[in-house]
């Protein structure tokens, strides 16, 4: 009984890390039709940054988190404004190629800077857990889930009620009409990619706090974000939360029932199933 309780809790908590990552991926995809193949490498880079700040300056990852968010926001904003905007109106293939190239450069840069060895962020609380009714709750993952919920709500409030958020939604729904309203699409894109990069970085720090990682860990993170985004529905506010929890749960339960080697089979099986029976995702809007 406790075993299953623990498995389900693990799954839910894993969903938090998955969900934050997907929050960024889904936003970029939903607004710009951009599938960012460098997403996972951004996240690993953020994890290395948090690690470096901790090891060399002694800054706790939770203190450096706002700084890392801002840094990635700014870098993402400029990257979109100066580079990605130049190819984004071409076909999808061009942006895939560009972000694939970015991923390649980033991954190799990280090998140069940090070596290919596995690292982990060793804070005093990295392995700390709360115990509740005999179930172990790792603190970092608990916080990740909390962050996912808070970030989802904040992002929703921003998109729903701010002038800029409305411009982003309008652009996502009907690009040419958005231009006719006087919205500057390149600026909206830059902001969206900046926000996405900042959120990806936050997710990356949480990943680094709860897993060991190497420069090669980006790819699987991108795939995870992709699957969660499809599960939850592209460009929906609560999709990443729903998708993250579903995937986290099924992976946790599946790896116990079928064995850990089958996790990928479960993940992609689920992806196929959703694409077949509900292509708009669990919370997907029909009108898009």
């Amino acid at each position, binding site marked *: 009984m406790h075993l299953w309780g623990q498995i389900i809790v693990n799954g839910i908590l894993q969903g938090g890390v998955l969900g934050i990552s997907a929050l960024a991926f889904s936003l970029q995809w939903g607004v710009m039709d951009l599938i960012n193949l460098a997403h996972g490498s951004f996240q690993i880079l953020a994890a290395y940054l948090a690690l470096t700040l901790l090891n060399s300056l002694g800054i706790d990852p939770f203190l450096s988190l706002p700084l890392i968010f801002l840094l990635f926001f700014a870098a993402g904003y400029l990257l979109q404004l100066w580079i990605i905007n130049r190819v984004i109106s071409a076909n999808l293939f061009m942006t895939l190629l560009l972000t694939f190239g970015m991923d390649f450069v980033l991954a190799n840069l990280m090998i140069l800077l940090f070596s290919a060895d596995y690292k982990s962020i060793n804070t005093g609380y990295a392995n700390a857990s709360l115990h509740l009714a005999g179930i172990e709750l790792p603190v970092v993952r608990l916080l990740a889930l909390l962050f996912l919920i808070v970030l989802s709500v904040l992002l929703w409030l921003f998109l729903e009620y701010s002038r800029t958020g*409305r411009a982003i939604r309008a652009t996502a*729904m*009907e690009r*040419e*009409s958005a231009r*006719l*309203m*006087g919205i*500057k699409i390149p600026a909206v894109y830059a902001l969206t990619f900046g926000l996405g990069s900042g959120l990806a970085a936050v997710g990356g720090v949480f990943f680094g706090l709860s897993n060991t990682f190497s420069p090669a860990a980006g790819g699987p993170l991108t795939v995870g974000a992709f699957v969660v985004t499809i599960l939850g529905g592209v460009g929906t506010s609560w999709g990443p939360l729903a998708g993250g929890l579903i995937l986290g749960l099924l992976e946790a339960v599946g790896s116990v029932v079928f064995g850990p080697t089958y996790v990928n089979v479960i993940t992609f099986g689920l992806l196929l199933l959703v694409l077949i029976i509900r292509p708009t995702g669990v919370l997907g809007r029909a*009108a898009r």
Partner: protein
Amino acid sequence: MLKISHLKAGYGDTAIIWDLSLEVNAGEIVALIGVNGAGKTTLLRTIMGLLAPWSGSITYRGRELTGLATDRIVGLGINMTPQGRRLFAGMSVEENLLMGAFLRRDGEIKADLERIYGLFPRLGERRRQTAGTLSGGEQQMCALGRSLMSRPALLLLDEMSLGLAPVVVEMLLDLVLQIREQGTTVLLVEQDVEEALLRADRGYVLEGGRISLSAPAGELLADRKLQEAYLGL
């Protein structure tokens, strides 16, 4: 007010508009007529800066528009109600209307919203409803209302009547007269040529990428060749 000379524009390497010139004076309703695929929408999109012209010039109140970004052109007081409505389907009616006022910073947006609801009571009743779930006629009202929310000095209307019931078409086109009375100049693209010419001051016929005919609306209505080609008489 709007002066287009020797405009050439198209998609890819296919020119759609060749050497087109036309003029719209302040306070006028000017109808633009042409068969399907003649390039009417292409012209309007070029005026709005959604499509870059290959050559020629478009001036608005003496100011060159070519090369300006769409948001600058909208900021100058030109607006377009696009063919096919193109509403923000996932937003409510009211949000759509407010998007029309995106560039405005004045305090009269709320008052204008009520004015739109006065013009279209149906939109007022459905202000919280998702735009994508409106009927065709209501969607067109919402699209027109959205344009009006920008308080345009020059309004480009692209095929408002497409797929709508005759009563709704009449109602929308009568509203165009009212819009002009309130000081907005209108360039009207319509497939319902007769209804458009009945309300326009002047008309242009777009054919083969050029203006083939330009005359006061009454003369165009009486033109035998035009009647055969566009009015089905």
